[in-house]
């Protein structure tokens, strides 16, 4: 294989791992849109909160995994960490961080829904939209206030190493796959399977689907609408928190405004796949991730942040329902 093909595969892997993060956030947008028909602007900021939650609980977890690894010496600096903690301890550490952060984010998402969106349930959509923008700005500015505006370095939770491919044959030389990328794919895949099972196989998942299909009939059939909405927010925010951890492991510089662009791009992903459609959100997320990385690699890289919006405009003009969405006529 020539070097340009290897380069292309490398960029594809990078794009997919970025896209996996977008997919996780896009799922939150899509689920909330499904049950409430509105776009939760503040969802991108949940990712930021997830990252910062990981930032604060990460050192505790590394201390714990150190103990498991039989070397509870806290004076060793973190850079040497990966030399003596094996992959299993780091997996356990990652799982611990994910559980803690996802529950914290779920609780926060439910709190936001309870305080800000529930009182507005039957108000005009524009009111809810403005509130959502307000909530998003509030989280960002409070983040700057509490965490400080300067970027922080995310602690090392797993031992990140590149997996060597050249052992499998000369033609793979030059291809690097990071452990964190493998973990991103793995965790995203697991979460997707769990989410699909939850939505398709459980009673609460059925209630969510029913609510998305027809809220009035759903309430008449005895479904507790508020509970389901709250649960959906929690679920979406938990996925957002997981996305925050995964993206920060790969790109360890975190700051209070990191959620803005992530959230907007993930929203574009949700629209690209067809908003309200879970498979569409994943497809859209992966596509946006790959397109973005390809533009950076082969096109004008300074236009990186504008690409997603260009995609959004094109998709809204050509196929407003999204790639996997059904065209629904608006009822009068």
């Amino acid at each position, binding site marked *: 294989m020539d070097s340009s093909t290897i380069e292309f595969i490398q960029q594809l892997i990078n794009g997919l791992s970025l896209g996996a993060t977008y997919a996780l956030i896009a799922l939150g947008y899509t689920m909330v849109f499904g049950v409430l028909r509105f776009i939760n602007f503040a969802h991108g900021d949940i990712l930021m909160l997830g990252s910062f939650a990981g930032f604060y609980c990460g050192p505790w977890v590394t201390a714990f995994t150190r103990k498991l690894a039989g070397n509870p010496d806290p004076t060793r600096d973190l850079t040497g960490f990966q030399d003596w903690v094996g992959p299993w301890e780091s997996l356990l550490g990652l799982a611990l961080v994910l559980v803690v952060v996802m529950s914290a984010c779920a609780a926060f998402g439910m709190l936001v829904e309870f305080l800000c969106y529930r009182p507005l349930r039957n108000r005009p959509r*524009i*009111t809810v939209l403005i509130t959502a923008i307000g909530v998003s700005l509030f989280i960002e500015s409070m983040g700057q206030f509490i965490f400080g505006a300067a970027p922080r370095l995310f602690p090392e939770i797993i031992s990140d190493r590149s997996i060597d491919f050249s052992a499998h044959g000369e033609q793979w030389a030059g291809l690097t796959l990071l452990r964190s990328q493998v973990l991103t794919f793995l965790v995203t895949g697991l979460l997707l399977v769990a989410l699909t099972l939850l939505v398709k196989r459980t009673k609460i998942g059925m209630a969510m689907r029913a609510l998305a299909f027809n809220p009035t009939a759903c309430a008449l059939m005895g479904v507790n609408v508020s509970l389901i909405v709250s649960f959906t927010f929690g679920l979406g925010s938990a996925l957002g928190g997981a996305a925050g951890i995964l993206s920060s492991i790969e790109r360890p510089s975190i700051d209070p405004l990191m959620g803005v662009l992530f959230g907007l791009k993930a929203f574009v992903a949700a629209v690209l796949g067809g908003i309200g459609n879970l498979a569409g959100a994943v497809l859209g997320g992966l596509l946006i991730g790959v397109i973005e990385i390809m533009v950076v690699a082969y096109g004008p890289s300074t236009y990186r942040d504008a690409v997603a919006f260009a995609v959004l405009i094109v998709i809204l*003009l050509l196929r407003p329902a999204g790639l996997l969405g059904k065209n629904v006529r608006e009822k*009068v």
Partner: protein
Amino acid sequence: MKSFDRTKIVLLVTIALVALLAYVCNRSPEFLQSRIYDILLGIGISIILAEGLNLVNGYTGQFSLGHAGFMAVGAFLGSAMSLGIAFPYLDGPTWAGAGWTVIFKVLQQGFAWLVNVFFWLHNSLVGLATGLPGWGKFLIALIYGGSTAALSGLLVGVPSLRLKGDYLAIVTLGFNEIIRVIIQNAEPLGAQRGLTGVPSNTNFFWVFAFAALTIYVVHNLVHSTYGRGFLAVRDDEIAAESMGINTTKYKVLAFVVGAAFAGIAGTLYAHQKQYINPEGFNFIRSVDIVVMVILGGMGNTVGVCIAAVLLTILPEILRDVAKLEWLPIWLREVAENRMIIYSLILIILMLARPQGLFGGWGKKKGAA
């Protein structure tokens, strides 16, 4: 319409008053250097921005979140006019060795031609304006900033106004980002460094004459046939369409007029601060303007005017509060970060009084 109706007289009298006040201001050089004068100019620019956006968000009910993008167009192109910056023409693609990529090359060539037509117009206008005296050049810069912003409003509005509500908000936000990124990549406009040394032409007269003109245009537009169309689109788009109203036309018109005033405000802003940076026209700047419109009550000219004044003074007061030494340190830090307060205003207002602080004021039966 009569040739000299009441509103026109009010406009002319206001402009005459503004000219008189500006004359008085100019007599005192200390006042021109003072902070109060700076804030006054800021208030006028905010009024132009907020009233322009009020036409789109308030009267026509199309939630736009990208007003700062049009302001950026006006600020940068207006300053380019004042500074005499000409654009170098784009080269077409190289045709040699084009296989199947010829499709892209044709597109690229077409794009280059289109852009070059605009560049040619810009460059010849710059050439024409060079010999003019200061105020004439500034007037041309203002008109040019306004019309290029209107043109970009047309380009943005035609595709995006097919969307509604949340989608429109995000697409306009996206265009705001795209405009910003394009300016950040435009080397003649200073790229990421921004433009410095813009002549300090903005004064009391220009700002408030244009503020009066904005209110006049918005008021008269809303109280005309067009205004009925705007309100019909806002109140029920489907009903309006079934009554034979060309909703797209009204939406695009409101958008273009709003963008034009944003462009003028941008040019005024650039010639006041004398330094502009693309970073200053981001999403946060758009939100500033949106908060003014919402606080004043969407579709309420007087309310939005008051809100624009209040929200321009507020950051200045907060800056003073942050300097008070007897306050606890966290309160001073909150005061320094005005977005905390803005976002709280938004949330609380939507929960408690969604029609805005002054919503319902000055509304006559059935009228706007």
